[in-house]
């Protein structure tokens, strides 16, 4: 089994936000919720870089560690998923997550948190693969169809890479070697305790 990871090559990301749109469309993510977003650092200054960020599917995931109902689980592909039937929308995973991945629909009288929603690595949830129930709760399950996450698959500059960690790290290293520079794999140290030479 592969160890699935995301890697955003900030030298290639042009902040087109197509990954954000593709994700919202593929999974029919509700208004106000973004499973993926593009953050631009040093905006308008020399050294400006854009990074597409979602759930990084951490090794030793903080969300899973703090969840009061233990609703998280890690698949054989090392994708971190959660069960919306046992999520209570307490917000703890959001406090713990380094990447701000957990999102909550605003429901109820105070606009309080509903059940958490986050990037599934296009791998659905605990329901039967590609069932209507799974789609309604988590969106499509491309991984079960043998496809990679749509955000990375349709990235026009191939800045966003998804797939086995070793393979995408190798692709990134070759790019850096060829062009002579790179700002590194954003979030990899935090999520995977890994350092990609660049």
């Amino acid at each position: 089994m592969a160890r699935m990871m995301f890697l955003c090559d900030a030298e290639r990301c042009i902040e087109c936000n197509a990954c954000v749109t593709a994700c919202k469309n593929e999974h029919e993510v509700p208004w106000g919720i973004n499973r993926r977003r593009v953050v631009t650092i040093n905006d308008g200054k020399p050294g400006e870089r854009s990074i597409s960020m979602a759930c990084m599917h951490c090794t030793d995931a903080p969300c899973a560690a703090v969840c009061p109902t233990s609703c998280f689980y890690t698949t054989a592909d090392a994708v971190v998923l959660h069960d919306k039937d046992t999520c209570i929308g307490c917000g703890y995973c959001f406090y713990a997550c380094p990447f701000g991945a957990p999102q909550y629909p605003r429901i109820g009288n105070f606009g309080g948190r509903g059940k958490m929603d986050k990037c599934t690595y296009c791998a659905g949830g605990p329901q039967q693969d590609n069932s209507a129930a799974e789609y309604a709760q988590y969106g499509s399950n491309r991984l079960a169809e043998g496809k990679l996450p749509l955000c990375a698959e349709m990235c026009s500059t191939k800045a966003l890479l998804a797939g086995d960690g070793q393979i995408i790290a190798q692709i990134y290293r070759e790019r850096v070697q060829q062009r002579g520079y790179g700002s590194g794999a954003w979030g990899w140290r935090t999520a995977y305790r890994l350092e990609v030479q660049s």
Partner: protein
Amino acid sequence: MSRLRIAFLAAALLAAAPAAAQNVVGTPTNPVQTPPRALELEMQQMLTGGRIAGRVSIPDQNAANLIQPAGRTWRDFHNVTLTWVGAIAILGVLAVLIVFYATRGRIPIEGGPSGRTIERFNLLDRSVHWMTATTFVILALSGLNLTFGRYLILPLIGPEAFATLSLWGKIAHNFLAFPFTLGIVLMFLLWVKDNIPNARDIAWFKAGGGLFGKGAHPPPAGRFNGGQKMVFWLTILGGSAVAISGYILVFPFMFTDIAGQQLAHMVHGLLSVLMIAAILAHIYIGSIGMEGAFAAMGSGQVDLNWAKEHHALWVEQEMARGRISAPPAGAAAAGD
């Protein structure tokens, strides 16, 4: 000698410069500036507790935080610090109470019940107390469930039942926060005038409240003794802090950002477990721990001998005001 070497090095560099410039032909000019480095930034923010943030073009400006390593600190707080502090405080107080009960037993009314009573808390006092008390118990249990339920209840009843229980617990926790806060405000207004600390409280604490050792006498006290005043201020100040930090969490992002919410949770969690531990002792002494004490918040009418023993000055005041008729000294109950 060394100067010569530096000069030679400089000349070599100058000669090499055009060659280097030729090498970068065809490379886009933007990487001329040193780009931000993911690894260094992440390590730096991890050490300083800062965040890597930028700009987003989506409406949710909270999404502009790229990486917030402070989540790790919060995780350690929730999974380690809060769990241990909570467990030690609550189990510790329970152990102390059990030892206290085993050695001291139920503290009796020294002269036995007189059979005559005096009104200690009227209906409003008692209603406010029990509104605050019942909401506190539900808030405490549903709150403890978020930290300990995963280890204690989840394995017993399974994930589905536990999720249902926790979801209702969360809803109850959010809504009952309002009557609890109202109770804190009303208790403050009703009882603050009798809870101003004074010199008698110091004497009361020095005597250990007359709690320790058979035949120990509590020093004379007004309407509230030193220990009760402590519980009062703990409830008012602790309750207010817990309420305010709680509202910050119930209305996400309305008052503060992610760092503020993490801090609010830490304050909320720590103060809550300490309050729960303290209130356990309050519940003990107000029920099985002391004969005659429960009546104060039960019927509101306490036995006169109990009142004289614990609140002699208050009894004198009440008698002076003519709220009760002067009883025969040392009267025993008619039925005795």
